[in-house]
């Protein structure tokens, strides 16, 4: 059964809103986990799982699927939520996040949940694995794409830079990487912890096709992916996102990097997201 992609921008925005609500619900239930990153990435995950990826959620090992490699494993609640909404597993299972016996571990494990391509958590490791998948696919003459999501804090590690140098050297045009540029990490603002700016210029200096977009604008993300594919080069798409996006008291606050909402905060957040949903439904395109 072929997966029906969402092509209508309103539907994709509504899906991002659903992903935000479901993610917060699973975090509330888990009583631990990361809030800000996942909320900031809900638009990206809606675009990725409901439009960009060629995949079959009911047949997660489908040979010709595109591969989505999550490197910054700690944002997995938003990936789980996107996967559940796409039909990989029942949405009720989201309530098992981080609990004993779950397939939805605190950081993803490829052996536990079909559809998870790689285990991640220790930062940087997904980047090299994505490169390896792209190299293997090219050796076999396969036409699918490999997408890899990394975070900006993750770039404190050396491994992403090693991986992208290799991708540029071997001209892996079937690999498209993304950076969640939200300027926060656990201890504070990324530019205070370990400055990364100007990130786009650094990537261009690596001879990598670099595209910088508003990471909370779904149509901009879709256009960037089209442009990356047309470039015929390994491409890096910098997603400028707002951490905590959609929940006013979480937005741009690094304090929300690694904690879940309590009951009162959850109720307040859902109220805001429901009014945003109303606005999307009435929006004219």
């Amino acid at each position, binding site marked *: 059964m072929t997966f029906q992609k969402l092509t209508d921008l309103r539907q994709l925005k509504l899906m991002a809103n659903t992903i935000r609500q479901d993610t917060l619900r699973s975090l509330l239930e888990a009583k631990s986990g990361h809030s800000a990153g996942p909320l900031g990435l809900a638009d990206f995950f809606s675009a990725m799982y409901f439009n960009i990826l060629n995949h079959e959620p009911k047949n997660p090992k489908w040979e010709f699927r595109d591969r989505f490699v999550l490197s910054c494993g700690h944002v997995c609640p938003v990936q789980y939520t996107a996967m559940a909404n796409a039909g990989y597993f029942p949405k009720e299972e989201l309530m098992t996040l981080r609990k004993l016996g779950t397939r939805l571990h605190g950081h993803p494990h490829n052996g536990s949940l079909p559809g998870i391509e*790689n285990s991640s*958590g220790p930062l940087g490791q997904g980047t090299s694995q994505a490169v*390896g*998948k792209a*190299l293997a696919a090219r*050796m076999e003459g396969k036409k699918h794409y490999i997408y890899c999501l990394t975070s900006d804090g993750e770039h404190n590690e050396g*491994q992403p830079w*090693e*991986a992208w140098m290799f991708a540029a050297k071997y001209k892996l045009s079937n690999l498209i990487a993304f950076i969640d540029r939200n300027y926060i990490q656990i201890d504070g603002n990324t530019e205070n912890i370990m400055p990364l700016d100007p990130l786009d210029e650094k990537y261009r200096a690596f001879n990598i096709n670099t595209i910088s977009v508003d990471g909370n604008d779904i149509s901009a993300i879709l256009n960037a992916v089209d442009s990356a594919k047309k470039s015929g080069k390994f491409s890096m798409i910098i997603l400028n996102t707002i951490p905590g996006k959609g929940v006013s008291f979480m937005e741009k606050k690094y304090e929300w990097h690694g904690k879940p909402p309590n009951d009162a905060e959850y109720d307040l957040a859902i109220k805001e997201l429901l009014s945003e949903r109303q606005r999307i439904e009435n929006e004219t395109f």
Partner: protein
Amino acid sequence: MAVKILENIYEKVDKVPTRDGLGKGLLELGATHPEVVVLCCDLTESTRVQWFAEKYPDRYFEVGVAEQNMAGIAAGMASEGKVPFIASYAVFSPGRNWDQIRVSLCYSENDVKIIGAHAGVSVGPDGATHQALEDIAIMRCLPNMTVLSPCDWIEAKKSTFHAIDNKLPVYFRLTRDKVPVITTEDTPFKIGRAEVFRDGSDVTLVASGQLVYEALIAANELKKEGISARVINNHTIKPIDKTTLINAAKETGAIVTAEEHQVMGGLGSAVAEVLSEHYPVPIKYVAVMDRFGESGTPDELMVKFGLKSKNIMEKAREVLKMKR
């Protein structure tokens, strides 16, 4: 009963580095296994993967000096059906990429083979930084990992073919220096099975790598003192052959282990873990005693660090005094 090994090794032996055996094995695997690919971190010649690279350039990838990246790329390729062999010096891989080996390989069950060349003080003049003495300890504690320390180049070559059938990560510990050839193509080899290389009833010498040869020489000399020493080639440090070790403990009542590795966490520890639980007998260890290596010729260092047959003989005499 001891298996058949090369004859006349007590009089004369040829010497070949074990890295050559793996390089040759890989070359043969290239022909029979199209899924085999090789990645290397700027050490193509000295790890002997150059032979594969020259014959199969489309299946060889130069990663540059980046061992963490190499392990990760290999994991990604393995997840898509390739069987990557990654090559560097053991101090760098697995020395510098342990977390990638832990998560991207072992936890993720990606079938990647790790070639750790230049293990032990017998690396020689390069000195302590380049002499891996902790690699077995950090590899054998990982779930899903198999750890092999072949005794000579022929065994190293055989281990390449056997490792390909094991669908999980394997670590090969190899030497830079030439080591005595003591087995033949017909000497039995199976991953997870230790072989008795010499029969004996008073004490058992359990060795791995080039210390197997030293143990055989020690046993031959001890015979002249009226001591009957069994020699076990314990090439697979994980999963360890409990049966052969427990039988040796029951039948000889005393053990000496011998390895070119730190005393903590290596073969000796693995043997002690098995015997202390199942059949406790006195054990003495020939190993590097919690210190770093240094520069020198391989032989000078093997002598200085107490890794020769005479050291094994001393420990055998000592352990016999403890035997009840």
